[in-house]
């Protein structure tokens, strides 16, 4: 049985793609830093890869230490080499907490690793706190399709592991004056560790702006009625300098692509402004956007659940209100220009 006192430090698994560090890792360093400070410990960023660019960035965003496992077999993600490398780092360094982004990579390596080192893993955490009584990590996450929240602890096993969705935690302010040493850590990757073969790596870059980066989202749901009617929402987004997103219903009907889907099975967003047009506000959708700063909802149905979460609720036909809104906004722009 492990002795919890032997485990110290908050580690963050840093994800890199094409040798570039992913944003979610910076967010986790920000959060990890907060947790480490409460525990009077340090936050360490762990990078696996080959020729990874701008590793010092991790220090700029708050990491106290950086561990770099550089190996050509870690350049492109593969389950076993990554699991093996992380296991060795963890066994050597004995961190108390390890954080992963809840991404296609994080949600693959973290459980395999948790299984290998026999510890607890909590998925998709939206809040992380330190228990004042015993210094355990309290991990709060949605369950039941987002209908309830659960706070989980891992009392007897170390490290305590958690995955966190991109867009949920906050990055620290970038401080380029922070200089942090990069510790090299070696791991031997053998042929037998390549438990599958990557035949081809295919990138599908979409030109659309990532909805998680946008400050203003104009979102459409089933009530929009057709792909054509989304044009009015595009106009609103354009005038406001935002981006169009949608609920699952619009994606399932093939009106909008999956990349702009907000919700439990889509993306989590927390823009400054979220305008929900013709979206009923099912729990699964709310789970993806309720942390938005300001929510305006337009829906024909006054009993729509979205109105329970919106700051301003308009009962009306969005296909009339949105064009009218666009007119008002355009008028306002003209007024501003003429000033």
């Amino acid at each position, binding site marked *: 049985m492990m002795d919890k006192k032997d485990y110290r430090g908050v580690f963050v698994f840093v994800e890199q793609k094409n040798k570039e560090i992913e944003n979610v890792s910076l967010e986790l360093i920000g959060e990890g830093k907060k947790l480490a400070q409460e525990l009077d410990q340090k936050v360490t960023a762990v990078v696996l890869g080959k020729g990874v660019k701008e590793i010092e960035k991790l220090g700029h965003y708050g990491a106290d230490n950086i561990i770099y496992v550089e190996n050509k077999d870690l350049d492109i993600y593969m389950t076993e080499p990554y699991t093996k490398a992380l296991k060795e780092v963890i066994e050597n360094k004995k961190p108390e907490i390890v954080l992963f982004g809840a991404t296609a990579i994080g949600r693959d390596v973290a459980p395999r690793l948790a299984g290998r080192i026999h510890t607890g893993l909590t998925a998709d955490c939206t809040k992380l706190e330190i228990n004042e009584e015993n210094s355990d990590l309290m991990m709060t996450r949605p369950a039941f399709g987002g209908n309830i929240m659960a706070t989980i602890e891992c009392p007897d096993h170390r490290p305590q592991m958690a995955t966190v969705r991109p867009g949920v935690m906050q990055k620290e302010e970038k401080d380029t004056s922070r200089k942090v040493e990069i510790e090299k850590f070696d791991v031997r990757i053998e042929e037998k560790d390549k438990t599958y073969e990557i035949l081809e790596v295919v990138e599908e870059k979409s030109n659309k702006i990532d909805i998680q980066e946008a400050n203003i989202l104009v979102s459409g749901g089933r009530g929009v009625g057709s792909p054509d009617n989304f044009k009015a929402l595009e106009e609103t987004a354009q005038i406001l300098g935002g981006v169009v997103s949608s609920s699952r219903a619009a994606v399932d009907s093939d009106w909008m692509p999956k990349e702009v889907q907000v919700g439990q099975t889509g993306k989590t967003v927390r823009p400054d402004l979220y305008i929900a047009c013709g979206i009923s506000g099912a729990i699964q959708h709310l789970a993806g956007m309720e942390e938005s700063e300001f929510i305006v909802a337009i829906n*024909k*149905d*006054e*009993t729509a659940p979205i109105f329970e979460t919106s700051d301003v609720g308009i*009962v009306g036909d969005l296909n009339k209100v949105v064009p009218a809104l666009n007119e008002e906004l355009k008028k306002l722009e003209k007024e501003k220009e003429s000033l």
Partner: protein
Amino acid sequence: MNYNLTEEQKLLKKLYKEFTVNEVEPIAGEIDEEERFPVETVEKMKNNGMLGIPFPKKYGGQGGDILAYIMLVEELSKACGTTGVVLSAHTSLCCGPIYEFGTEEQKQKYLEPLAKGEKLGAFGLTEANAGTDAAGQQTKAVLDGDHYILNGSKIFITNAANADVFIVLAMTDKSKGTRGISAFIVEKEYEGFTIGKKELKMGIKGSATCELIFENVKVPKENLIGKEGKGFSIAMKTLDGGRIGIAAQALGLAQGAIDETVKYVKERKQFGRSISKFQNTQFQLADMQTKVDAARLLVYRAAFNKDNRIPYSNEAAMAKLFASETAMEVTNKAVQLHGGYGYTREYPVERMMRDAKITEIYEGTSEVMKMVVSANML
């Protein structure tokens, strides 16, 4: 008396509901608007074993029962009355008599492909001069060596334009009245057999209702069902079974109309609130659902009787009488509760009302049902 569904029936209902929501509902409006037969739906139903539910596996069926089959008619009809009657006519009116009265050879030759859904069936009894007075058959069948020569015509035959196999009633001996009528299995390819004009109807527009025209059609004598002179009795018993199917269709239409109305009244606002808050709306819906539940019990009871070899002619008549009148009443009220929108084709209830009317007429009018029920009492 157990009113609960078995686990098996629950799983069947789950399949029926998923199939209806995903395959039938999305095209129901189009089928009606274009007056076209739902060919693609029938193909999918075939692939899922839905066209021969109550027949034994050895005849290409699914080894199920009448109750399981009419539950499907009901579910399909919630979204589309046309699809419901296509299944009902095929199963009860064509497969039915071959199964109940046919020879082993006839079952192997015809029932098997029909139950598998490889062929579609229809039933030809009604004629221009023989509706409720079905005994007045003018279509003639004369034995000539190895064949019967069929001459005459039928009208208002469901599935006609898309069917491969037809049960056709014809007079073989006029002097014997109803005991001179015989039943035959007729294939669409037989020379001299043509499908006539398609009726333009008020409802179930996707159902191909056509004339059948027989000009010296040679029907092999092996295709006589039962014996000469037994045709009328076979037809009446077949219609008893068919009535359960139509009752299920009416039931589905009614329930579908209620479900649509419940959705609508929750959304629609007048006088500052949802119209579902008005007592009139609430009381109307309560009446509608109660009647539909009553109809359901009658329909399921008739099916239960048939499955358990208990006489069911009377029960089937009651079920059809009550379910069809309820469907008419409920769909009418559904349109009313939708207000002006209910009268437009944007909402499905006007189609459901148009579809419901025929259930009071075909396979025996409501008046005929009353004749059956009162005859049983007096």
